[in-house]
């Protein structure tokens, strides 16, 4: 249950969150592998993560949410940008370290 404007919610909330999480997880891991292949160092690597994460989130809003994320997510900014940030960051670091070590 969210604010007083949204009197009701539905179990599609979970489904939408699941699909967003799937997009963010897969792209974070692949960006990590790419960062390792390109042998990016500390600052450039984190910058690539931030750029990739934000661009994937924006692309999600533009394409899948059709520029109206409030219709599909309660508190869209929190759900799309903030909630999975740490989780994707750690996944990115793991994939980055993995491919950096293997390729380097």
């Amino acid at each position, binding site marked *: 249950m969210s604010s007083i404007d949204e009197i009701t919610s539905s179990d599609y909330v979970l489904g939408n969150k699941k699909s967003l999480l799937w997009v963010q997880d897969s792209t974070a891991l692949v960006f990590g592998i790419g960062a390792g292949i390109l042998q990016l160092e500390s600052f450039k690597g984190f910058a690539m993560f931030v750029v990739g994460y934000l661009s994937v989130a924006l692309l999600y809003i533009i394409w899948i949410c*059709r520029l109206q994320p409030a219709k599909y997510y309660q508190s869209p900014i929190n759900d799309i940008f903030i909630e999975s940030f740490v989780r994707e960051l750690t996944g990115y670091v793991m994939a980055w370290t993995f491919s950096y070590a*293997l390729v380097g």
Partner: protein
Amino acid sequence: MALLSTILILFSSALILHSGFSSHEFHQLLKSLPQDSHSYLGHQLPKDIQYEAIAGIITFTIAVFFSFKKLTYYPLQGPQKLITLNHYLHEIRMNKATNVDNLIGNDPYGEINHTPNFIDIHAKREETKRWLEQNDKKEI
């Protein structure tokens, strides 16, 4: 769309693996050079390997986005054609989320609502009797 998505994922994996292998080979060669020579320090990864890796990443994200399908449903009345809605995700507000259910007359709690103990038998009998009388009148 889903087929295109699978093809693109395979293609992007091939790109990434190939660029990874190329990069690995490059760094092996780089290590075999003497450490202090001036040709060592300036060498970055060749441009084409970089572009290949970046292209692989971008293709992968596009493939992930292509894997979303627009929502569809079959209508009960009208032409029996698959109707494709224009959006990819289900809306969460209850009045919009139950839109398709209302259109096709589906009760998601039908198992509970229609258990025999919950149905008012007398009301149903009266309704059936009235309907039969009306039908008989029509036939006559």
